[in-house]
């Protein structure tokens, strides 16, 4: 393949990664923004989404779309419910102390991950996509008769990958509507701005925290259900999304939704594109160093607040 078609392919792959990453990172960012805590177990909720999706979809016979839709509806609920339990029994008990929460959620990370290993096992298993048509993509070049289109060998994507991108955009829009247009969004934003005042105005802050923590986990799980037909479910799959979400949230600015989405596009796309041309390990090294240096020299990120 020539460079041009190769780049187009890389951009498409990057866009799928960016879409899923935006959802996952948004969950982490929401939790940090409203609750001012870092959820180190966030990647495990992503993994839970994929693993639960497999448990839901695999026994369902008939068209794969039935199992997939069921997983799409139920897996985020399961992950969200587990997150609410974690909030009630761990985070609330340490009174959302930022450092204790990090140590506690590291513990939760191991508990969820190792429980998945016991129950689900060490294998990687796919969930069948609801539809999966190969779509060949055209490329152009200047020929003797002017602009000519042709279909280079290997330049193709699938309808499902395009669906993932569209679905992610839809979910992001829905998230934006919830945050800006609904009462629940208003309550979350009020709690984010000033916890004490929110309490004084009768907002049940503790319940808001539980909802936010569950909602953040559900977003990660939703992202995982979308990607699991492409990537397979595995008990260690939470590691990379956690790291990338950290990177996105820090670059984008903690608690800033706009920054998170912009950074997810930036990181997801460049991760996808760089991995095609460079070694993925090298691109990860550069990304992690970049993030560390952003935190050191520009702690407020692109948009948003300083982390203290």
């Amino acid at each position, binding site marked *: 393949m020539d460079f041009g078609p190769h780049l187009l392919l890389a951009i498409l792959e990057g866009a799928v990664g960016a879409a899923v990453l935006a959802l996952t990172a948004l969950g982490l960012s929401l939790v940090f923004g409203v609750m001012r805590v870092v959820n180190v177990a966030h990647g495990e909720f992503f993994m839970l989404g994929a693993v639960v999706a497999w448990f839901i979809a695999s026994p369902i016979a008939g068209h794969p779309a039935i199992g997939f839709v069921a997983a799409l509806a139920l897996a985020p609920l399961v992950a969200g419910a587990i997150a609410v339990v974690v909030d009630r029994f761990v985070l609330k008990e*340490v009174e959302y102390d930022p450092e204790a929460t*990090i140590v506690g959620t590291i*513990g939760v990370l*191991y508990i969820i991950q190792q429980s998945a290993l016991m129950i689900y096992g060490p294998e990687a298993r796919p969930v069948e996509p609801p539809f999966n048509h190969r779509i060949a993509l055209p490329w152009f070049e200047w020929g003797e008769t002017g602009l000519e289109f042709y279909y280079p060998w290997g330049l193709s994507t699938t309808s499902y990958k395009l669906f993932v991108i569209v679905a992610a955009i839809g979910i992001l829009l829905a998230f934006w509507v919830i945050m800006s247009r609904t009462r629940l969004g208003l309550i979350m934003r009020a709690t984010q701005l000033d916890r004490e005042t929110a309490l004084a105005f009768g907002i049940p802050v503790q319940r808001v925290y539980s909802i936010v923590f569950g909602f953040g986990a559900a977003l990660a799980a939703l992202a995982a259900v979308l990607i699991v037909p492409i990537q397979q479910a595995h008990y260690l799959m939470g590691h990379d999304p956690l790291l990338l979400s950290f990177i996105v949230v820090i670059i984008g600015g903690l608690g800033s939704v706009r920054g998170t989405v912009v950074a997810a596009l930036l990181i997801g796309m460049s991760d996808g594109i760089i991995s095609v041309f460079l070694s993925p390990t090298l691109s990860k090294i550069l990304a992690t160093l970049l993030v560390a240096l952003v935190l050191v020299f520009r702690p407020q990120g692109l948009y948003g607040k300083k982390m203290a």
Partner: protein
Amino acid sequence: MTVDTRSVLLHLGLIALLIVLGLVLPTYHQGNLARILVLATYAIGFNVLFGYTGLLSLGHAMFFAAGMYGCGLAMHLGGWPVLSALGAGIIAAAVLSLIVALLALRTIGVAFMIVTLMFAQAFFLTALYLGEWTGGDEGFVIAQASRQIAGFALTDPLTRFFAALAVFSVALLITARMMHLPFGRVLIGVRENEERTRMLGYDTFRHKLLAVIISGTISGGAGAAYAVLFGYVGATFASVQYSIFPLLWVLLGGMGTTIGPLIGVAFMFYLIDYASGLTNAYLLIVGAALVLLTLFARAGIVGEIRKRWVPWLP
């Protein structure tokens, strides 16, 4: 008897007890205890920063691994003798901790935790990327014949045990002494109230810088000793897990106590040893222990003993 005498007796008594254990224990437990002592040295290094200075690093594996690779590569590729290789490992860790400290100490709190985590991740990935020399995930084995000092083979279980004990004792006595000196008291001052300490005329940045370097260098020394004594070097030791372990050990044993790290490592080592016989998901124990400690016993084993019964414990 003054507090000072009591603490000297406690530390010397502990070392004497370990000598006796080394002589009487069967080979299997002797080997375990040697490993525990080296890992406890790592935990002591971590405790200098976390327990005494109040700075939580989530990236200490990079210092442990810097010592390990520095020493291991010097022997494996450079053919250096053990003592010079140990020196190379310790210097590698000291240099790395100086660089990390200068950057990471510009941040505080949660940002410090994440910056150290990210640096360690970059280190880990670099170790994988340079697989041609490091052996990547699989690592490499240091030739048995080269693992000896002045004719004493470190592959011999008893020699290895006493070498591990020597490393541990040096770290224990250095830190115990340090926390008695004004320098150590100021570290505690930084942990308890940094602003107040600064306004008593102490250069708190310089103290934190030194704390990171001392902590990183001791951790690196442990890593170098691990490479020499157990003959294996691998990227696992640079992974996130090995940054979380010392946190767990110190929390369990008692942060800011001199003997807590050893107690924490020993407890966890045998717990994991036992659990891994039951299930392959033995790291579940690690998770449960972390959550329970966060919820119920933030002072750890030795810390709780100190709080309840023996207030003079150093």
